[in-house]
């Protein structure tokens, strides 16, 4: 679809190093979007991975994951398909 002009840059989200390396074999990666905030530091290694390759690191939930009642529906399914809320 990129070749068809439907999109400019591609990113990957919720990836570990092995998955990111595999993605890089197939496609240019402009951004890696994983979690990152003061309580979510395991992604330090992915920040480093991105920095070493001049890939933008786009953290989700940088100010901490919202804890309001309105997210009740999202967190449980998050583990299934939307890791932004894991």
């Amino acid at each position, binding site marked *: 679809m990129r070749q068809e002009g439907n999109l400019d*840059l591609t990113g990957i*989200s919720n990836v570990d190093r092995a998955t990111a390396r595999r993605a890089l074999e197939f496609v240019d990666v402009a951004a890696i979007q994983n979690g990152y905030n003061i309580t979510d530091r395991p992604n330090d290694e992915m920040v480093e991975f991105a920095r070493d390759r001049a890939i*933008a690191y*786009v953290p989700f939930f940088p100010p901490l994951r919202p804890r309001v009642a309105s997210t009740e*529906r999202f967190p449980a*399914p998050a583990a*299934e*398909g939307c890791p932004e809320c894991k």
Partner: protein
Amino acid sequence: MGLSANTTSLSDKPINRIGYGAMQLAGPGVFGPARDPGAARAVLRHAVAVGVDHIDTSQYYGPDVVNDLIREALHPYPENLKLATKVGARRDAAGRVLPAQRPDELREGVEANLRSLRVERLDLVTAVWSRREPTPR
């Protein structure tokens, strides 16, 4: 163009370090309509007015709700505004988030974002990787 503390680059393009993540504009649980769509549109317009040049969204926020708000508030988009979307998930009628990672589903996701944002080209499309199969609930 020099990069200041507030600016970085996305690929070779300058971009502000802080963008606006629009996920929470949908209803409770990122599902269904916004409680106050007018306020949501005002937030989006205000974000751009104060210098946000990058909005993060997806068609599966709502679904369609957040992209619709962005389109209604900001289309035609300022030239410097980058729209970053995601593919790889979908919602069922109960709001559950399911993986949608097959090639045809990824293509469908890109097309749904193009359609709801009303653009011919998306600036950044992120494929969300999900390792798990959906679980019933």
